């Protein structure tokens, strides 16, 4: 493991993956909160024509020009989505799908044009489809780092404004904030995150890196600051583990590995996160159901006792089952463990019977006397 960390390529890859995780984690949070998860999908597919145009302009695999191209076409596709939704009767989903598929098609056409041109250095472009961590050079890291830093600086500077626009755009407008400009800035940030991740994850899967870290982080916290920090952390964890595996095992694409890593984090977060975790919610539901059943059975026994004027009235299990329309034996056994009911026999009958204990009687009376809607 230590030997791995000393490896020059592995270091480069890990640093690139960390940058990817941080930028997409932080910037994706705003997209997810604004219900624009699928815009990331469109922007990342729309990066393909930009990559090709950048390549055609630079004439080589110059990463700066290529990423600039990706940014421009990404922004252009966002503009197309906006135009289609504002100026025609198409809905957002159709506009997103149109921008995604047509710009990807343009990218495919340009890609085949470049490959048909017989350019010697064209080989590198394929790696942008699914990501190829091993293709990252030290020099590329500076550009990725620069983009990440400037995006983070933008988030830091406009933190309050972004927060407000994400959660309550109406209120933000009423305060006189330039909401449209801020929304444009946030959309541009998604494009920036896409650009940083392109080499690692590729155009097709970048969407997962925008959505997944934010969704996972949302599970653990209720504050935007916490969410952004956690998303960056999760993104980095997934990015580094996926990228390192891909760089050490030959022939595995980097993008899918990173996506599977972040998806595992999402799954764990969905199930286990305290508070919002599905496991806890299901436990809570079961506990509540059990408690309710116990209270119902207690009340029934109490009502029967009152009806018969006999505190020690022995109710037959079968009668209780029929009355509740469900088997009550388990509930009675739980109540017995709490010392509230006791099994008794009622000669000459041989069927099992139950009666309230003293404590059970007191508890039932307390429940019965409690004002409507008071649970305790």
């Amino acid at each position, binding site marked *: 493991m230590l030997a791995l960390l000393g490896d020059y390529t592995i270091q480069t890859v890990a640093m690139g993956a960390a940058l990817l995780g941080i930028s997409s984690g932080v910037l994706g949070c705003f997209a*997810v909160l604004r219900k624009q998860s699928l815009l990331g*999908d469109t922007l990342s597919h729309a990066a393909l024509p930009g990559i090709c145009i950048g390549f055609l302009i630079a004439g080589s695999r110059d990463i700066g020009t290529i990423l600039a191209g990706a940014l421009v076409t990404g922004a252009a596709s966002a503009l197309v989505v906006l135009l289609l939704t504002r100026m025609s009767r198409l809905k957002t989903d*159709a506009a997103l799908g149109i921008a995604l*598929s*047509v710009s990807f098609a*343009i990218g495919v056409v340009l890609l085949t044009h470049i490959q048909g041109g017989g350019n010697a250095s064209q080989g590198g472009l394929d790696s942008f489809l699914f990501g190829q961590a091993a293709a990252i050079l030290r020099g590329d890291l500076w550009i990725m780092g620069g983009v990440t830093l400037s995006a983070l600086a933008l988030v830091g500077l406009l933190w309050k404004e972004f927060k407000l626009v994400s959660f309550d755009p109406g209120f933000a407008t009423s305060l006189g904030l330039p909401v449209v400009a801020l929304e444009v800035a946030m959309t541009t940030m998604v494009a920036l995150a896409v650009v940083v991740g392109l080499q690692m994850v590729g155009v097709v899967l970048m969407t997962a890196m925008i959505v*997944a870290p934010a969704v996972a982080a949302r599970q653990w916290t209720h504050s935007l600051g916490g969410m952004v920090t956690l998303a960056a952390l999760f993104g980095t964890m997934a990015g580094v583990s996926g990228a390192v595996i891909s760089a050490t095992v030959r022939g595995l694409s980097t*993008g899918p590995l990173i*996506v599977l890593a972040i998806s595992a984090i999402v799954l764990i977060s969905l199930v286990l996160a305290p508070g919002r975790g599905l496991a806890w919610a299901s436990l809570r539901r079961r506990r509540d159901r059990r408690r309710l059943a116990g209270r119902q059975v207690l009340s029934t026994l109490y009502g029967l006792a009152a009806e018969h004027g006999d505190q020690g009235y022995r109710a037959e299990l079968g009668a209780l089952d029929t009355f509740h329309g469900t088997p009550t034996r388990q509930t009675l056994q739980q109540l017995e463990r709490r010392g509230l009911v006791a099994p008794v026999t009622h000669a000459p009958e041989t069927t099992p019977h139950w009666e309230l204990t003293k404590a059970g009687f007191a508890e039932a009376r307390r429940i019965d006397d409690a004002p409507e809607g008071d649970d305790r």
Partner: protein
Amino acid sequence: MIEAFFLNISLMIMLTGALVGCASSLVGTFLVLRGNSMLSDAISHSIIFGIVVVWLLTGAASGPVQIVGAAMTGVLTVFLTELLFSTRRVKYDAAIGLVFPVLFSVGVLLLNLYARDVHIDQHTVLLGEIGFVWLDTVDLAGYEIPRSLISMSVMTVVNLLFVRVLYKELKITTFDPALAAALGFAPTAIFYALLFLTSATAVAAFDAVGAVLLVAFVIVPPSAAYLLTDRLWVMLAIGMAISIASSVSGYYLAVVLDVSIGGMMAVMTGVFLGLAFLFGPRYGVIARLHRQRTEREANALRTVAIHLYSHEDGTQQHEENVARALETHLGWTARHARAVIAQGLTRNLLARQDNLLVLTPKGREHARSILEPWRN
């Protein structure tokens, strides 16, 4: 004669493209109308998982087993997305963005691992090879027929039958799902049937156009048709017509420019959408702008007519019913006022008497019909 038909390579390619387009836009029409366009993106990505798994398990590279088996993954994607959404932990768009990348990633990694055994490579996954459909032929009734052509013909017929037989049901579940449910039309079952056919179409078209370009065929022609008509069956027909036109024009352009045929066909769907967006007779941008302008002009003429009518023969006539008053009293610019007067003169609503603007009988009638509509 028939043999020559099947040996004509360009015809085979165009026909395959047209069938892909027709089959996709038949189902795509309903996805676009329901606002679920992006599900086609999710489906077309995740069927790769299905294709690889079915191939590894059964060795079926095409045919009904492959299509039905792999199509189940498409339905699975939607099912998992709905399941994730139903936990109320993530929004619908984020749920889409989480599920399909996982299945797609697993599919790509399986491709990486079993690259030597699987009949498709990463490139085909995204781009398809419609230019080579004629290489893979089947002997049918003595003729060498491209395999893709057969599967796409079958899918087109199946989709046509589906739409024809369930036309009424599809219509009501699309436009009023609540009413459909109340009438007992099982909107969910029809929705999943639609998704299954979308997936099956995606699998059948996979070899020809790959995963992402298919999205263009599913979404773009119906969207363009939606901009041109309000009738469902017309929309279906226009969608198919646009698909066919895109295939033919895309093929010739691709041959001339020496680029990807499938890509160019998809780009052409975008071109047709752009044309519909700009020049649509009713919902197009130009028609809409023209309508706005006409409306504004008519309104200005109404204003002038009423202004002149209410001061006609009044004491202030010499102050009010002059060209200058339009600028000072109505707050119009000199240019606008001049243009409106010119319009009024040509339409024979106004006339000049020395300095005074007066209404012609027609103009007076016009003003009266607005102010006192009960007279007529």
